């Protein structure tokens, strides 16, 4: 899994040192906010979810069983809090343009639009699988669903996104495949 914060910061925070806990919150905040924004598609709701997640980190880091468990723990918290704010405030039909940030890359906006067309449970697995590089077993643990469920959601999401992102299909892929065959 991707590390949210260096292990030494997590270890120091687990001792209960207030300054270390706040350093940890500062370190994980950008990741929490961006992950929440990706799955809820709204900056305001993402801020709520990320803040709630950081409150839990601030409050409970002392009782975390090991430093190694931190990454999976925080993924679970952020996804759970994102799901909670999403349930209270159904996501907007179109993601706001400001989610895409200052990027001039129009494909970024298309990514958000594509994600917004997915049902929430499919969006969650797509984000964790493609953006966070989590394995499907890890996603199952984060979302507390069965492994086959993750695979099914992923397959359905791919099917849906395939049509939506056709414009961005890598046109060089067939050529690269052919090249690989020759080289190998």
């Amino acid at each position: 899994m991707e590390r949210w914060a260096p292990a030494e910061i997590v270890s120091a925070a687990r001792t209960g040192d207030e300054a270390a806990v706040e350093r940890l919150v500062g370190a994980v905040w950008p990741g929490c906010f961006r992950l929440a924004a990706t799955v809820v598609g709204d900056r305001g709701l993402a801020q709520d979810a990320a803040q709630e997640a950081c409150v839990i980190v601030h409050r409970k880091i002392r009782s975390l069983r090991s430093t190694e468990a931190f990454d999976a723990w925080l993924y679970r918290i952020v996804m759970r809090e994102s799901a909670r704010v999403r349930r209270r405030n159904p996501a907007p039909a179109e993601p706001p343009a400001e989610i895409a940030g200052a990027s001039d890359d129009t494909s970024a906006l298309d990514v958000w639009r594509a994600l917004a067309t997915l049902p929430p449970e499919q969006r969650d697995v797509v984000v964790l699988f493609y953006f966070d590089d989590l394995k499907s077993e890890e996603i199952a643990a984060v979302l507390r669903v069965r492994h086959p469920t993750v695979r099914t959601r992923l397959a359905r999401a791919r099917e849906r996104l395939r049509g939506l992102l056709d414009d961005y299909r890598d046109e060089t892929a067939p050529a690269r495949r052919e090249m690989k065959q020759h080289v190998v």
Partner: protein
Amino acid sequence: MSFDFSAKGRSARATIAVPEVPLNAIRARSRAARAHERTMRIAAVCTALVVVALGAGTGAGAKLYSTVRVWVSGEKASITVSSFDGVREPTSAEFHDAIAHATFPVVLPVGLPPGTHVTHVFSTPARHPSALVISYVNDRTGLKASFVLVDPKVVQLGGTLLRMQSASPRDVYDWRAGGELVLLPKTVPAAEADRLKAAMQTATPDGTLRATEPMLATISALGGPNRLELAERYAPRNGRSALIDRNQTRSVAALAAQGRPFLDMRVFHVTDVPYVNGAPDYARAHGWNARTVAIPPGGVRAIAAVLRSARGAGGDCACEVLFNQPNAAAYRIWTIPLSPSADVKAYEVDARTLAVVSRSR
């Protein structure tokens, strides 16, 4: 699809502008949640006490009716407490309110050593309690005791022998006083328990209420202050007074900048307590704290002005702060150091200009 969707998604996500981390809000909410958890833990302990109480008080099987109820299933005893109210560091008015609608004439614990004060009162069911749990602490003698006072009418004698799984009736003293059943965990020596029992059995409800008054807080204690007893000596009898603990003094500057008050969240209510395998699951209960304004925004600005003048812009004075508003024109503020050897300092702040003046006391 993995051709470039991952890369596109990751780079799109990396361009999301991140707002500044709301550390003050996170810190404040974390502390509030911790206080709530602490309350829930105490509630769970008190519920266990009520269970023990039933076994101890009746000797043989017991059932409590209404919303305080125990039923026997094989060898496992379960209790249903569907709702309760609680107050931390209750003031006289709050204490009276907690016991006013009890279903039995309440004989309160008397004969406790001087310097004892009431830390918590729980009443269940919430509106017309048939059980009260009152916790006392005495810093001088080290006394920590929680008394459970139960309406005997909701206890039915007879039936199957009630056996405890997690707590034993042998760990509790029990006696009758007036129209109530009294239970006291064996955290005090037997001789002390006998003395308390004798005092309660000869007392009247009104007399015990009068004896309890000096044990109640005279000011609102926000957070978990350590210097409550000392602060009460300084707090004037007129106007509203509140004491904030050291952690809360750290948030004074932020609250003042945002024009927000200090809230008093000592009173809490819990309803709809669900049960899992016969045990209450407080984490999923519906609970909320009453949120009354203890120190208005103007008072918070006045405290900020005092802390600035006392310690510079940092505001962490290693102290607790006593606040009093005698009238609309002025605030009185005391900084009470955590170190017993340091002096308490008194200030008066003009409510309009926030000018700070040191006072002799």
